[in-house]
């Protein structure tokens, strides 16, 4: 059975293209793609690449909304291409652009280096409260203690929240919602004792204090991580810490 033959309808994709070798700046190009009901935007892009224009570049891998590669603006909203289905979009052309607020490397591929550095800056690993050797076995952690941070550990690093956050748009140095979700993932873990270190890392103007609680980050998050909670909760923590840190022994420095 030839799949293409059974597809009579087509859908128009308007894609923001940018080829650094030849283009001064990005511009839109339209493609007519054979349409089927169960098709995701990612599949439409793959169809374009395989049959219409092999030079179109975009990131993807898992196809199941878990690897976090395929974030892009679809009809102006940050979405994962692999779990955005054409049948759920309003009729008419579908606009696809690179994730907002990030520099475009090419077509739908954006720069991710800064984001990775932000993740690395918040000590994203357990700093044990009570160190244990492997021979001593696992830590105990009740389901309630797990629930305290579990949702923050669901972040797939897709950066959609960054594309939605206007304050990140204004200030690219802002640590941003996703990294703060990761911070809270560790700060809320009963096994961890590194809270103070992480709080110190985000006390600056580019840390939590660039967030104005817009809250859209949580609305666009495909994994219901609620990064807005992570960052605003830590605004409270950081605010109290602002006064408490004078009382600490090491306040001198």
């Amino acid at each position, binding site marked *: 059975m030839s799949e293409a033959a*059974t597809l009579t309808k087509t859908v128009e994709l308007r894609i923001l293209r940018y*080829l*650094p*070798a*030849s283009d001064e700046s990005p511009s839109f190009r339209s493609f007519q793609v054979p349409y089927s009901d*169960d098709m995701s935007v990612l599949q439409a892009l793959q169809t374009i*690449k*395989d*049959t219409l224009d*092999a*030079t179109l*570049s*975009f*990131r*993807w*891998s*898992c*196809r*199941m*909304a*878990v*690897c*976090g*590669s395929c974030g892009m603006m679809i009809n102006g909203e940050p979405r994962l291409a692999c*779990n955005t*289905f054409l049948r759920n979009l309003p009729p008419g052309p579908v606009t696809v652009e690179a994730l907002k607020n990030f520099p475009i*490397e*090419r*077509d739908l*591929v954006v720069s991710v280096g800064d984001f*990775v550095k932000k*993740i*690395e800056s918040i000590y*994203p*690993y*357990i700093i*044990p409260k009570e160190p*244990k050797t*492997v*021979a001593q*076995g*696992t*830590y*105990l*952690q*009740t*389901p309630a*203690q*797990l629930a305290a*941070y*579990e949702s923050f*550990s*669901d972040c*797939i*690093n897709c950066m959609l929240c960054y594309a939605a956050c206007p304050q990140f748009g204004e200030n690219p140095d802002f640590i941003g919602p996703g990294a703060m979700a*990761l911070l809270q993932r*560790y700060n809320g*873990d009963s*096994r*961890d004792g590194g809270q103070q270190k992480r709080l110190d890392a985000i006390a600056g103007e580019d840390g939590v204090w660039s967030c104005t609680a817009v809250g859209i980050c949580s609305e666009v998050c495909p994994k219901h991580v609620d990064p807005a909670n992570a960052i605003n909760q830590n605004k409270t923590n950081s605010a109290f810490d602002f006064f408490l840190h004078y009382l600490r022994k090491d306040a001198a420095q």
Partner: protein
Amino acid sequence: MEHFEADVLIIGAGGAGLRAAIAAAEADPSLTVALVSKVLPMRSHTVAAEGGAAGVTQAHDTLDNHFNDTVHGGDWLCEQDVVEFFVSRCTQEMVQLEHWGCPWSRKPDGNINVRAFGGMKIERTWFAADRSGFHILHTLFQTSTKYPSIKRFDEYFCVDLIVEDGRAQGATLLSLSTGEFTAISARSVVLATGGAGRVFRQNTNGGIVTGDGMALAFRHGVPLRDMEFVQYHPTCMPGTGLLFTEACRGEGGYLVNKDGYRYLQDYGLGPVSPEPRNKAMELGPRDRLSQAFWHEERKGRTVETPAGSVVYLDLRHLGKAKLKERLPLICELAEEFMGIDPADAPIPVRPAVHYTMGGIPTDIRTATPIPGLYAAGECSSVGIHGANRLGSNSLTELFVFGHVAGDEAVKFAKGAPAVNAGRNLEQAKASAAKALALRDQKGAGERHADLRKEMALTMEKGCGIYRIGSEMQETCDKLAELKRRFANVTIEDRSAAWNTDWVAALELGYQLDVAEAMAHSALERRESRGAHQRIDGFEARDDEHFLAHSLAHYREGASPEITYGPVKITKSKPGERAYGALGEALESKKEATHV
């Protein structure tokens, strides 16, 4: 060309590569570890694993049980000394991951919870809801940022290994963002590049699972072992092939045909019971379940859909609350991708390619035949999966053998003489030139996308759940034709930055090599064992001739040559591989004779 000198080079930053990198960094913090990945590490395909990882933890379970389940499951094609070592190391690796923060699901008292998995006698699968691989990968990646000696090369694509003076000394990388090449010299190299499932059409694998590392080693003369053993997972989404984890069945899901009948009872997996029973019915091993589907399809008891015939995975009786707690990702997948709420309706499923049992052969210390070259994870064949992998053994494999690989690579690096930087750079330049030549070749207008489709189709046809000699031969011929046509490929995109057209073509080159190794190994194995099932007169297992590992040897410009190597049998003599009531009867008989 940039030239970076490291002590240990690790290619691949999935579960195996990250575990190896951490082990290397811990073994000797003064050594520089270069960690290369063609995607950001947390995008690696380990992220997609759902069900969990095996490690004996319950008091009434034993290492022997895990050993036996693994060896039976692998239809006695396992290296038994390696399996023994493996099962003894699983639990400590799970504990280590717990210490690093992996959010394993817990019992009310705060202890680790385990779930049942196919082919396992006793529950021993550690899980983090149904996002186990995701949590493991992110835990490992985040933990790896703690070690200053790990220098990452994210979004660098490996185009070739550097083998000099008879030992591995580095690799040639293409930076995806710039299109420029970098040479890395190192005193030891670990391959951890994952599987090759994308050579098949319907598969559960991510786009990056293209067998690169296997092909790289293959082309440097390392034979690929047991490549005919490709695992079909019985419960996948028709069309996309996306996976519904075995944990669905571990939690008590049913498989029913179009009449709502639990058909597995007709295939030696009974008796039927409403509650899940280990090693019976839905908790039989994957090869058996996929084979049963095939028979149902032949009998006309499946349902036809545009994406092929399907049976149903029925989870309704588990109830909404349990589904949301234990299988949230599955609910999300079914709802978002198929518009089905598993609490209300059964999910249509069919088998799809899932896992490559074979790969780069290594010894128990993960060493490959090339000195200084190690391999771990799905790209390797260390010998624990045999002819059929048991679900949840492969995640644990990543840590047990990733850890060993890291340690061994450090040991080798410390004992090895200095690298030959000059010669390495020359090799890298030659490899780069070759890759560039592909990008810029005039070709004859052949599109690699078309070749890829044809490859996936012919692999599905010839090397599917059941295999026939003539069809396998057709597949071999087709692959040879595709390789010829590959020389005529014209790449549309000639630019440097983020040229994914070019990279996809390079990957296709790897895939064709790996596919050939699979098809030829399959054709030559004239018996049925584990995931390799023939219906052309070789329906039975033939221990006399084929209790042996196949080895596919690369031949430039020709199809691979297949030879065989011995299988290490220590304490489990090949016996009948039975599940369900029959399996239990066999086992009690065995226990009785032991007394």
